């Protein structure tokens, strides 16, 4: 498993966590070679998770864009309503294999918290989720869902009270309870081996896209688009395509228009260490991590997975930011044209994909990973619409 992607990655953590990270890497290395483990992962992905998810031709959205065909990878149909299940299931099985009875997780939009809570329930593991107070207020339905699924939700009241601070709190819990607890990190961020591990579990998205593209239109897509916060649905989409000719586009959250750097660490950050990894980080002139701003709690993060940092530098993937208003516009497009409510996170990617489709000929195909469904975002979207966005 790669520890570094170019210069990025590594494990900048207190010594207390080192043995747990080593154990996690060893357990995954053994488990992936174990047919029984693989069989259980595949079976539960299918019977509990609902995989494979369909690749849907968005006919009306394509007509609206007036260019290349737009296809949606329907991760919003996965159990729990987002791609987060893929990783939560995999790591949950690893936790059980390591004999750790307790799961902790951070969550931004609440999707990862919900996924972890449902896996915890299904596997009989005690589950506690850290969530920033600001995010709890704007993603309330997910807080209720986690509680109904039997998880304890801890409000995080420090710092900007969003995803970054939730990760800090989860790491502190892990440092104290590492002998009995697995930290089920939800994105392709954090210390090695998490970025590799999460990408492994999410790569099912890209593998299915490749297979379904051949089945649906007899070719590979010309372009794949995914949103990037920490970057787990994006790395899952991109990784199986890195050695193909598919053009790859990652979309960060640009935040509100005018001045703000949003949460676009690849577009506006510089390399540094956040949460155990050397990667692009939004920071101020003193090397302090900057507060971020985005309408989508799930992309509202000052760092990004180290593999994305390297893919940016190497030029294999292009990264751009889409502002809040673009995401809200795309939310309405998809609702009105296709009858699908997307989460605000992938709405950023849909906005960019429509723009790309417009520039391309009708013979080309653009695949967008629709990483989650938008029920959780109704309050935010309705509020923005009332304000005239």
């Amino acid at each position, binding site marked *: 498993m790669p520890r570094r992607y170019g210069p990025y990655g590594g*494990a900048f953590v*207190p*010594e*207390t966590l080192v043995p747990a990270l080593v154990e996690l890497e060893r357990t995954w290395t053994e488990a992936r070679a174990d047919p029984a483990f693989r069989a259980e992962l595949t079976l539960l992905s299918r019977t509990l998770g609902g995989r494979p998810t369909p690749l849907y031709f968005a006919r009306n959205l394509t007509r609206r864009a007036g260019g290349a065909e737009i296809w949606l990878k329907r991760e919003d149909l996965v159990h729990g309503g987002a791609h987060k299940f893929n990783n939560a299931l995999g790591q949950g099985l690893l936790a059980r294999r390591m004999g750790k009875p307790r799961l902790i997780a951070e969550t931004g939009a609440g999707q990862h918290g919900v996924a972890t809570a449902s896996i915890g329930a299904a596997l009989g593991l005690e589950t506690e989720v850290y969530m920033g107070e600001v995010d709890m207020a704007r993603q309330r339905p997910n807080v209720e869902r986690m509680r109904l699924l039997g998880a304890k939700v801890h409000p995080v009241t420090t710092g900007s009270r969003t995803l970054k601070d939730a990760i*800090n709190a989860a790491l502190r819990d892990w*440092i104290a309870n590492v002998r009995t607890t697995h930290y089920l990190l939800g994105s392709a961020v954090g210390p090695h081996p998490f970025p590799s591990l999460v990408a492994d579990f999410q790569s099912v998205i890209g593998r299915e896209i490749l297979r379904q593209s051949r089945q649906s239109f007899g070719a590979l897509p010309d372009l794949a688009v995914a949103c990037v916060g920490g970057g787990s649905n994006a790395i899952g989409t991109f990784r199986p395509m890195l050695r193909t000719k598919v053009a790859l586009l990652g979309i960060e959250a640009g935040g509100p228009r005018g001045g703000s750097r949003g949460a676009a660490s690849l577009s506006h950050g510089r390399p540094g*260490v956040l949460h*155990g990894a050397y990667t692009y980080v939004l920071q101020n002139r003193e090397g302090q991590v900057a507060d971020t701003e985005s309408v989508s709690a799930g992309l509202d993060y000052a760092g990004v997975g180290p593999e994305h940092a390297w893919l940016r530098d190497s030029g294999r993937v292009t990264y751009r930011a889409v502002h809040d208003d673009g995401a809200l516009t795309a939310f309405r497009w998809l609702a009105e044209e296709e009858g699908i409510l997307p989460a605000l996170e992938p709405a950023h990617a849909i906005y960019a994909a429509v723009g790309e489709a417009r520039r391309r000929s009708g013979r080309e195909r653009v695949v967008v990973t629709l990483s989650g469904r938008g029920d959780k975002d109704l309050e935010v979207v309705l509020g923005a619409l009332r304000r005239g966005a």
Partner: protein
Amino acid sequence: MERFDAALRSARALGRPVVVPYLMVDRRRRSGLAGVVDALARGGASALELGFPFSDPIADGPTLEAAAGRALDHGTRWSDLLDQVRVAGARLPTAVMTYANPVLYRGLRSGMKSLRRAGAGALIVPDLSFEEAGPWIHAAHSADLALVLFAAPAISPRRVEHIARRSRGFLYLVSRYGTTGRERPAGSADLAPLVRASHRAAPELPVLVGFGVRDRASAVQALASGADGVIVGSALEERLELRPRTTQIVRFIRTIASARGTPPAGVARPRRARRP
């Protein structure tokens, strides 16, 4: 670096515990700093740790996290750190503790050189695991700064040996599973095998126990492992927030400096090599 090492060694040679208090650098505390450091020195501190605040201090508990947040709200900058190192370093040998990112932001070499020029003797980075320490060790060496490495109850005595061989200044032994501050009594883990491993691998390197050392009893317990001294952070920070009189600071450090560990029965203290 010489002065820093010498200060710790001389306390050890006298058979006294090495006491290193920790202060958060805060722009608003600049005017009182000299007085506080003098009081710490009078109370028996051998050296001082100055903490530079970081926005995401994952190894710190509530007390120091809040202190860092306040310091940043007060506009504390790297230049304040250098300024306060100059003030403190004139009174006690001074180490700087901060997370990896603020140093990396300035570049390893130039960041460390600026600390050295200001008079710091050592650098302590709690989120620098041994695997990532290589480039830091080289940069610290060329900046003539002692890079203090960490050990913890979670790791094996064998790993402690490797770390102790590369650590300079002292070995920072974390007392327990957890973050800094009160939450659980210090020394609940059995630190003695880790202290022995360090002394075996690097006989001259003092081992200092930190995290949760807050009074005489916890200091006694930490020293009972055979460690050479203790680091006192959160407990001092809590007192400073109450704006104590100088004599109270002196007394607080003195109670800790007067602690002696009783080595567990049947365990001889390792012999320490003298410097030729």
